[in-house]
């Protein structure tokens, strides 16, 4: 749906808070399974959403490097927070899924059967601009011909995206510098911006327009549109973090020209090589394949699950490990995300969501690491 061609409807509509359930009901009737933000284990997570009451009303996330906690802010809003540890990625690229099964007959002959996923299409309610940007980047990894991942494709083709522009940024958000937020630009069916009592709605696809018509939304007033702009400006101006050089190819060249920089030793001494950053990153796409034979040895199932370049097994090759220390693993992660991603997909792999900073147990800040590597260069230019 949101993968289809660009759609041109410049109108602004208003969705009052009280009509969220009408929207969800419409989507349910259309056969969608709605996924939206809610509180679980003291964090905002995206799970099956049946009723607007499940949304995280009146809560704000407090994020710092290595820290995440929710606080009540007593505002009657459902989206006065920035983000949680995951959003879209686990919905389209499953943390673990079966790829194929094989049966062996009494002569040893093998019969293979690909696993197809019979599932309802997914409507993602309330996803942030950074996460939509992350989805568009994962599309490049999984949907570029001739190598299309059918499992991802089956879910992606039918997904309905209800984006939510941000009115607030956490301490770890830096999407302004990565040009991926706080307002969603592409890849959505409708986009919401929360103001008092509801949302200003813009339309990004024909399916989105059909939804607007079906639940009979009125046009937003000029005041509402101004309020929308204030919210987005607020989220943008409150960001204190930025990716150096605006996350451009300049970062690519900086990192690839500084593979022997002393900062790699510095960060390696702090990094635990735990892989949290890769798990929460909306664009990381590595997976490893595993085999689960049945006890009777007649059948076996072949699956994949998320992997991380911070594991020893990730770079294993015939008896040895290419990246046998934390320094080379962190270097792989950072140079891939910000540098060689350009070579592969003509984009940075970073969308400025700040999750890798928040969920790092020792609070390693990706923007600070790049800045530290950039520092001598910046000093040189200052002294010229």
């Amino acid at each position: 749906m949101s993968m289809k061609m660009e759609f041109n409807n410049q109108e602004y509509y208003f969705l009052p808070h009280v009509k969220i359930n009408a929207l969800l009901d419409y989507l349910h009737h259309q056969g969608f399974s709605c996924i939206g933000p809610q509180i679980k284990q003291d964090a905002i997570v995206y799970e099956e959403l049946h009723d607007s009451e499940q949304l995280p009303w009146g809560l704000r996330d407090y994020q710092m490097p290595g820290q995440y906690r929710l606080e009540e802010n007593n505002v009657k809003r459902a989206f006065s927070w920035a983000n949680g540890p995951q959003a879209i990625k686990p919905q389209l690229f499953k943390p673990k899924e079966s790829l194929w099964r094989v049966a062996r007959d009494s002569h040893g002959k093998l019969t293979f059967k690909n696993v197809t996923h019979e599932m309802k299409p997914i409507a993602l309610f309330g996803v942030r601009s950074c996460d939509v940007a992350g989805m568009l980047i994962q599309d490049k990894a999984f949907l570029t011909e001739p190598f299309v991942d059918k499992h991802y494709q089956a879910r992606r083709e039918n997904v309905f995206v209800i984006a939510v522009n941000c009115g607030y940024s956490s301490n770890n958000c830096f999407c302004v510098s990565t040009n991926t937020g706080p307002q969603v630009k592409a890849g959505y069916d409708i986009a919401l911006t929360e103001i008092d009592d509801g949302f200003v709605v813009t339309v990004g696809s024909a399916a989105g327009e059909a939804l607007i018509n079906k639940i009979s939304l009125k046009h937003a007033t000029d005041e509402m549109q101004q309020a929308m702009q204030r919210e987005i400006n607020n989220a943008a101006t409150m960001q204190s973090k930025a990716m150096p050089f605006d996350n451009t190819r300049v970062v690519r060249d900086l990192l690839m020209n500084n593979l022997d920089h002393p900062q790699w030793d510095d960060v390696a001494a702090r990094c635990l090589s735990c892989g949290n950053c890769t798990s929460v990153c909306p664009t990381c796409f590595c997976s490893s394949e595993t085999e689960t034979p049945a006890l009777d040895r007649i059948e076996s199932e072949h699956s994949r699950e998320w992997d991380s370049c911070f594991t020893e097994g990730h770079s294993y090759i015939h008896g040895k490990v290419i990246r046998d220390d934390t320094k080379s693993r962190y270097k792989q992660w950072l140079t891939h995300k910000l540098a060689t991603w350009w070579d592969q997909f003509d984009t940075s792999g970073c969308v400025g969501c700040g999750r890798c900073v928040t969920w790092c147990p020792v609070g390693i800040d990706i923007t600070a690491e790049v800045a530290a590597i950039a520092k001598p260069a910046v000093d040189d230019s200052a002294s010229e």
Partner: protein
Amino acid sequence: MVMKNDHQDILHDTIIVDYQPITDTIFNIGLQFTDENIHRAYQFLPGQFNMLYLFGIGEVAISIVSDPTHDDLYYHTIRRVGRVTTGLSQLKKGDHIGVRGPFGRGWPLSQISGKDILIITGGLGCAPSVSMIHYIMNRREQFGKLMILQGVKHSNDLIYQSYYEKWATAPNTEVLVTADKTTTNWPWYSGLITELIKKINFDPETTICLMCGPEPMFLAAVQLLIERNLPEQSIYMSMERNMQCAIGHCGHCQFGGKFVCKDGPIFCYPDIKDLLGKKGF
């Protein structure tokens, strides 16, 4: 050449028709697809690889060593190292395994046709070049001078010894083999493969070098070749990394911005030289 799109996630049953132990840890298996139509339709290029699947254990990426058109069976030379290859080493004729492939970009056949070919292989990793040598031998008139340089650590490590002996007698073909450590009656050279490079005469304008083996060997060989005016873009090499999906999705085979499985495993040297030999890549 990319086969039709569905080969990437479809496995086919094959039967081990030929099993040849070569050393204690190395063996050669010749596979036949149980479906005759698939066996006939299966196509690959020298330098490409298959994912071989052992029931209940998993897959492993292995080069195809056959000639693309002259062999009845699809041969794979395998060294027993990890879980899957250890399991494969215990199979026998008549056993079944799954095959998914072929994958990757093979040796650049169109660019090297009519050229003198210098093949440099080191250690046990010579399998990707063997298919190429078979290809040249079966089409000898399409190529100029053929020089085959093979180095091993110990003379006992030399596999395909009878092949090297046979190739050495082919027209317009030079075969030089060396071992760091040799036993008595070793008919070839002793020392590093770099010493062999110094012994050969090649015309840098008409020669294409194809390499496979360990990366430090690539670096040493490239330096010697460039000193002798072989252009960088006349050097190709076969890279190895962890491969699980074989189509650039699983991320394990990344070499900087390249996915070895789909952008390689054969690379032109200038395309990978920036990171070649860099620790961690």
